[in-house]
């Protein structure tokens, strides 16, 4: 009995040693890949940070309104965030590449899916950034045009344009990354529909005089002789 236990233990130890001897080189390869990955990712981070500083990416992010969001969320600058993101994505990629060398059954599929997801993630981030940039530019353009045309509530107009564009961009981003596609689509439709209906009701009920004046001015010529005052000629 005792001899049997010793034999079994010895056998188990030998198998364990064999298994360990079998996997050790793979772990070493994984560690080397992870280390090389860290070096590459760190290099990428430094390189990307320099490029982004060179092209004044922070200013671009500020124009897009992204910097304000980051500050509110107590996050680092846009340049730092992007370079850190690139570092982690690159290193994680290398780590997962190393894991696939280990030959753990079941993980291979997950790793492949992760690599397939990366392009979509980048596209989503691209859409997000340029969407925010576009929203900021167009809302400011609308604000300036409304102020210079002496329209009522210019800031409301500007914020509305910004909100609509951001909602549109977010729906595109969620669709791209495949998060709650249907929910986002329905939610977007509901929000946009409600907004348009609200605006129509507000214009019809609250601004009927304005609408009447506008239409009269456009369609009925020479109906009213408004007192004419000179405008200053700037040049």
């Amino acid at each position, binding site marked *: 009995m005792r001899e049997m236990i010793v034999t079994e233990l010895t056998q188990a130890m030998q198998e364990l040693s064999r298994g360990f001897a079998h996997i050790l080189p793979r772990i070493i390869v994984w560690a080397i890949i992870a280390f090389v990955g860290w070096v590459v990712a760190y290099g990428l981070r430094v390189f990307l940070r320099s490029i982004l500083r060179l092209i004044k990416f922070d200013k671009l992010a500020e124009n897009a309104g992204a910097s304000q969001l980051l500050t509110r969320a107590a996050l680092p600058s846009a340049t730092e965030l992007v370079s850190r993101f690139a570092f982690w994505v690159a290193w994680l990629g290398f780590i997962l590449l190393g894991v696939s060398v280990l030959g753990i059954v079941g993980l291979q599929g997950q790793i492949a899916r992760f690599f397939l997801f990366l392009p979509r993630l980048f596209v989503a981030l691209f859409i997000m950034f340029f969407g925010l940039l576009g929203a900021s530019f167009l809302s400011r*353009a609308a604000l*300036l*045009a409304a*102020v210079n*045309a002496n329209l009522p509530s210019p800031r409301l107009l500007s914020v509305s344009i910004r909100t609509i564009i951001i909602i549109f961009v977010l729906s595109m981003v969620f669709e791209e990354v495949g998060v709650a596609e249907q929910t986002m689509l329905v939610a977007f439709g509901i929000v946009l529909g409600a907004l348009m209906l609200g605006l129509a009701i507000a214009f019809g009920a609250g601004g009927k005089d304005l609408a009447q004046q506008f239409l009269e001015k456009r369609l009925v010529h020479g109906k009213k002789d408004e007192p004419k005052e000179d405008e*200053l*000629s700037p040049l």
Partner: protein
Amino acid sequence: MTEVRLADESFLTDDFLRQLINVGEVDILVGVPTHNNAKTIGAIVETVQAGILKFFPRERAAIINADGGSRDGTRELVASAAIDDAQRRSKLYTLRTLHSISTQYGSSPARGTALRTILAAAELLRAKACSVISPESTQITTDWLTTLLRPVYSEEFDLVLPTYSRHRFDGILLTNLLYPMTRALYGLEIREPYALECAFSGRLGSQFLAQNPWHDETARAGSEIQFTLAAIAGQYRICQSFLGTKEHVDRRAADLVPALRQTVGALFSSLEPNFSLWNAKTGSHPIPTTGPAREFTLEPLRVNRKRLRGMFSTGVAELESVFQSILSPSTLAELQQIARLEDFRYSAELWVKTVYEFAAAYHKSVINRDHIIQALAPLFRGRAYTFLVENGNGSAADVEDNIEALCLEFERMKPYLLEIWNGRE
């Protein structure tokens, strides 16, 4: 042997080139850019013809009409203004040739392209002295031709800019920004840096034609002021000639933003390439001037001051987020303070500080450059309101004194512009 360099005529139509080749060479060229000016163009072309017959009968001359797609028969009116009729009317006869050519440079008006067409024609015809006449100048007389062209043709000036007798409230952008800032930067007392009428030498025209970035929208839009700045930068000989009364043009407030783009945008964009020219200049000096540098008329004018004040106050309140990117916190705070007052004064010092901070923001492109120019409009209205209030009961001399004081303030605060030009981010 002199090097012969012809204009880049690729943008000119074949028909126009053929007509220019038929003309050969000229001594005098008068360019008239038009777009739907049928009401005035006939009389202007007749006056130009009469002026040439009267003052330049021994010179070969051409009138070039660059049209931006008129649909009211403007080009036909130019073509039908026959020289024989002008000779019969004036009983003066030219001893050389006087041609009249009309060309359409595009289907929509673009002043920059019109000027480019006239400059290219002047270079191809090797004109010695050229003049541009605005199609809206209904008060033109035959004397304008000699007043503008003679200094170039006989006295070797390269650029003759006009001075006018204007209503004291006309051209507020000129008197409150363009003239004082150009003067403070470049040290020359040029009253009308944005001139719709001017005369220039062939060499200045050729140089500007070759150097101006015509593909750039800003350069094309502000070509008139760019032309003046190119003459200053090239250290050409510049003078001013008094043309008489400039009629008050009734403009809608909506014209302000395009006017700012054409003038202030062009002035701001010229600061970068000309930095070495203006950064070391201090003070200013007058340029040779024939007649008075400026006259003001004082007849009453109904101006909606309440609207100006309202648009200033609304602008300061609504554009706070935009101004935070452009202005320093102290300037913005001062503006917000005066915008809350019922009867405010936008002081010369604050106005100069504002303009210089806008110029620095434009240079650094803190936001889109066109947005920076648009954001200046409500603040300009505030300054215009103050100018109206301060000069409401003033004499012509008082108005002139106020403008002079503003110019000196621009000169005094020039070090501030240099400080923020490369300093504060």
